[in-house]
């Protein structure tokens, strides 16, 4: 299901193979003698059609060239090497340091440090963030229902911070009144319940600033029996107001504008994909995810294994989250994005690259 490994592990080699869409698009343009026109169809249609034995031809063009395609509507350039790796983050779950208490209960220990750090929110655009362990979103904490959690929190920043965990726990472990000053620390200890998809974030005031600056992360409590095996992915919907005018200039899942569109996420045909989707977008009441060419089972908050909604679009308020499960019927490229067009066009888009053969 998941592995307890280092913060940079969990990278699938195929995740770092970019540039396919561009080449395909160019080739299609040359062969067809006409430029590709309409939006998503331009990316996905040729492969769809081939797979289903259907004919599909995109014609159009003239002086506009490929302007109508998603190739031009995108942040340009690549991230500085050595920084946050959205591909690695996607599949990385932190199980903590595992041991057993005398009672037989599983103990999981985590170290989380709040620190200030410049992060890249679009290629070349740097944002002075407040982070958990130097990354935005913070590490994805994962455990099983009934585990004892011990989270050692140290504040290495220049402002007071906390960690507020969603879930059931005693009052003193809430992180809303136990404000940790710069240089201070705090030990959170509680039993993990209930199972589901939660989140954690700073609860120092002003809240809006502490959240928007990047102090949040995903908190997953698995049911005792686990969930069915799947390809599991974490996506945190967030945004950044880079010029501090109260509106976001960048929207994304996992911080970097258009990253998963430029670097499609490889998925195998028919494989079960489980998406842990969390909304921490500031300055906008809601955010959403829409999946192309497919529908997903939407388990709200992930606290129920039976009841779900079968849909292709889910809307989440700030702090809301949902577990989405789906598998693709046809190979090819499928977009997913916020269905608020503005968010999508400012960076919240991605592509699943579905293939029959395993990704090399």
């Amino acid at each position, binding site marked *: 299901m998941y592995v307890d490994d280092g913060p940079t592990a969990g990278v699938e080699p195929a995740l770092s193979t970019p540039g396919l869409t561009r080449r395909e698009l160019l080739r299609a343009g040359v062969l067809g003698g006409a430029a590709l026109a309409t939006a998503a169809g331009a990316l996905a249609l040729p492969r769809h059609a081939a797979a289903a034995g259907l004919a599909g031809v995109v014609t159009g063009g003239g*002086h506009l060239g490929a*302007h109508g395609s998603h*190739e*031009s509507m*995108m942040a340009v350039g690549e991230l500085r090497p050595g920084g946050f790796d959205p591909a690695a983050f996607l599949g990385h779950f932190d199980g903590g340091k595992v041991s057993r208490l005398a009672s037989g209960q599983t103990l999981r220990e985590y170290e989380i440090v709040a620190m200030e750090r410049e992060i890249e929110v*679009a*290629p070349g*655009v740097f944002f002075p963030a407040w982070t958990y362990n130097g990354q935005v979103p913070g590490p994805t904490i994962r455990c099983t229902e009934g585990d004892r959690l011990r989270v050692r929190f140290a504040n290495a920043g220049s402002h007071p911070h906390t960690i507020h965990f969603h879930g059931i726990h005693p009052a003193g472990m809430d992180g809303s009144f136990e404000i940790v000053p710069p240089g201070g620390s705090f030990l959170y200890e509680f039993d993990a319940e209930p199972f589901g998809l939660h989140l954690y974030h700073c609860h120092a005031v002003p809240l809006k600033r502490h959240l928007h600056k990047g102090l949040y992360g995903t908190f997953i409590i698995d049911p005792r029996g686990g969930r069915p095996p799947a390809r599991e992915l974490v996506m945190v919907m967030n945004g950044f107001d880079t010029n501090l*005018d109260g509106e976001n200039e960048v929207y994304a899942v996992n911080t970097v504008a258009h990253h998963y569109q430029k670097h499609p996420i490889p998925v195998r045909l028919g494989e079960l994909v489980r998406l842990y989707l969390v909304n921490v977008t500031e300055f906008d009441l809601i955010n959403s995810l829409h999946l192309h060419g497919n529908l997903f089972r939407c388990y709200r908050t992930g606290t129920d294994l039976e009841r779900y909604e079968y849909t292709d679009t889910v809307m989440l308020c700030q702090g809301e989250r949902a577990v989405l499960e789906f598998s693709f019927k046809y190979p090819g490229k499928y977009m997913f994005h916020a269905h608020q067009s503005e968010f999508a066009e400012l960076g919240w888009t991605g592509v699943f690259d579905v293939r029959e053969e395993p990704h090399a």
Partner: protein
Amino acid sequence: MPETLTAPPGPRGEAAPPAPGPRRALPGWAKGAGPLLLLAVLVLAFLRFGPVGVFRKGFPPVEELTVERITLPRPGELRVSVVNSGPEPVTIAQVLVDDAAWAHSLDGGRTLGRLERRTVTIPYPWVEGEPVAVKLVTATGLTFDGEVAVATETPRASGRFVGTFALLGIYAGVIPVFLGLLWLPFLRTLERRWVDFFLSLTVGLLVFLGVDALGEALEFAGRVPGPYQGTGLVLLGVAGTPLALGALGRRGRSGAGAATPWAVATLVAAGIGLHNLGEGLLIGSAYATGEIALGTFLVVGFLIHNTTEGLGIVAPLARERPAPGRLLLLGALAGVPTVVGAWIGGFTHSPFWTTLFFAVGVGAIAQVVFVLWRMLAGREGGALLRPLNAAGLLAGLLVMYATGLLVPA
């Protein structure tokens, strides 16, 4: 002949005694350079050891980008001319168009030094007639905006557009000035005091035009990139033009005698011409930026407004013999700049040059007003405060105000 500078006389009216002492005196230029050298040392010391480090540490760099012009050279393409108007280098990291991230290219590196320029080319499917908003996102996340109010293909300097803008300039500036010249026969029938009335009226017209142009100059000055000091540019134009014109006028005449009517009329025509250059700029840029309705209103408004300018030119000539060739030249001097202005405004609009043109226009008008004032003051029973002349001045202001109502703000 200008006076030559001489050393001030000594206490008893003698020349100052030579520097005493046995030491050899430094050459004159070295005495002048000494303070400069000290100043240079001081500036370097301040930059190197000065107390500004305290501030530098605490604040992020101040980035300044000025979007000078956005052109739409063809369907599906935007071009943004941008200059780094701040003290620090600025890196353009991303470009947003209508709140969407867009692919783009720059004619050079992404980092701009002080006063460095770039053109950002964006493949954007803009929609005819709708506004386009461009945001440049710097590496630190700051954004700098530019806007096209009405998207339409930017005219290129093709024969067709050169002709069209020339025609617009002729309508707005040349025809009305010539119409105004036709008042000369009427003026020739008048008594001197009524001629003076019309001369005063000319002063009124010019003062109104000057203030109007000053307003325009200051408005455009606000859009000039910071280091080019828009307001300073206005001062240079407003103060520098009369100084230059005055000096030229003085060279042209042998003595300090009064200017001839023809000279005055030429000055009036030149001042009005510079003012009309500014009007042409407005017309040209209105059409170039797709504001067709505004441009048309401007042409019609100026057409009516400017006939009074012709009257102003011929007022000093009321007692002269009409020489059609010279009159035509005067009309051209005042009217043709409208055409030139329309070309400049249509093809190469830039806040810097627009500000300077308007400011020079203001300065020229100030100079003409000064000359007319002296002319009136020099006459027997003249001066502007004589009731009939004062009425003329007021009438001039009112006429301009009334016809100006036809021109949209």
